[in-house]
């Protein structure tokens, strides 16, 4: 029998160490997102008792089981719906959704646009690996044109969503895009979004060397990371509609940062008004 591996790391307190090592493949960007996320918490000195992480189903969905905070690994596509409920029930909580491109934008696409439209006070981090990793590398709404996947063996003919543009036009108050190579910038954006109120969205373009990378002959993870490094162009404030993601260019940066009243603030104000003065706590 293999002995249980022991794990000692300066950031152990943010991790459910008994669940490690994680299930993700060699070089999978999901691990980098986990790493940056717990570093952001550490650098912020976040109150772990008031933080909730919600994920959907998919490889990245497993993240909810690795962070040592209250977390929900929900059903496929419903992470935002459940996160919305958590936030409205207890507005003091900081609610973070970390999920996949398929989870958030295929089956969960409607929840995404309407939560952004309502400005639900959530941090949403989408790990975009251009495919459905967990189920074997099928095409999804972010798969680039001409890509080979298990369900597009002759090349994808469907135009992908520009997630940053979709988030911004649906009403997100903060929109950023980074890649798994941009560890410092990503950590900074996670911190910025955790400090803000409103629907904040971070897209992380992330290598899935095992499936998307393999089918598209992109080499190992390290080759995919070198590709991300090579083609990324930082353009803060860029119009998200023009922030392209293609094999020759990925525009990254902080694209949107505006302030608007949040859904929970408005709901609690409304409750207060209707109840006529009896105080209702809310607006976290």
């Amino acid at each position, binding site marked *: 029998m293999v002995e249980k591996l022991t794990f*000692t790391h300066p950031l152990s307190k943010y991790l459910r160490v008994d669940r490690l090592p994680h299930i993700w493949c060699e070089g999978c960007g999901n691990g980098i997102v986990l790493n940056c996320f717990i570093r952001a918490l550490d650098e912020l000195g976040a109150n772990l008792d008031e933080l909730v992480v919600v994920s959907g189903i998919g490889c990245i969905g497993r993240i909810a089981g690795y962070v040592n905070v209250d977390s929900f690994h929900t059903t496929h596509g419903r992470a935002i719906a459940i996160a919305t409920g958590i936030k409205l029930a207890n507005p003091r909580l900081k609610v973070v959704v970390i999920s996949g491109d398929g989870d958030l934008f295929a089956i969960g696409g409607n929840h995404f646009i309407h939560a952004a439209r309502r400005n639900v006070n959530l941090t949403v981090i989408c790990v975009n690996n251009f495919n459905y990793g967990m189920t074997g590398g099928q095409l999804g709404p972010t798969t680039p044109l001409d890509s080979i996947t298990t369900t597009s063996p002759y090349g994808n003919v469907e135009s992908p969503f520009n997630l940053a543009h979709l988030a911004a036009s649906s009403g997100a108050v903060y929109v950023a895009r980074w890649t798994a190579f941009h560890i410092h910038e990503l950590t900074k954006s996670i911190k910025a979004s955790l400090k803000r109120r409103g629907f904040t969205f971070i897209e992380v373009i992330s290598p899935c060397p095992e499936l998307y990378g393999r089918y598209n002959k992109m080499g190992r993870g390290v080759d995919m990371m070198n590709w991300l490094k090579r083609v990324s162009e930082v353009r803060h404030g860029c119009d998200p509609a023009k922030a392209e993601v293609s094999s020759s260019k990925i525009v990254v940066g902080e694209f949107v940062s505006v302030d608007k009243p949040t859904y929970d603030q408005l709901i609690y104000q409304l409750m207060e008004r209707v109840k006529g003065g009896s105080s209702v706590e809310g607006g976290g």
Partner: protein
Amino acid sequence: MKKPTTFKAKLKIVEEFCKGCDYCIEFCPVDALKRSERPNLRGVCPPKLKDEGTCIACGLCERICPDLAICLER
């Protein structure tokens, strides 16, 4: 310029957690790391310092490692 010799951090490699992606080795700004010769239980040779003095404790490897297998002890 005189090369600094002491840093307030020591590189620690949790060998059994390494999956061998090579990100730390590839992206270290001073090329301080290489693969070791002894495989871990996965059959992967984790990274090690080429020699003790080269690491500038920049923290890149500990942040880019998807498996949290390398870290600086400050």
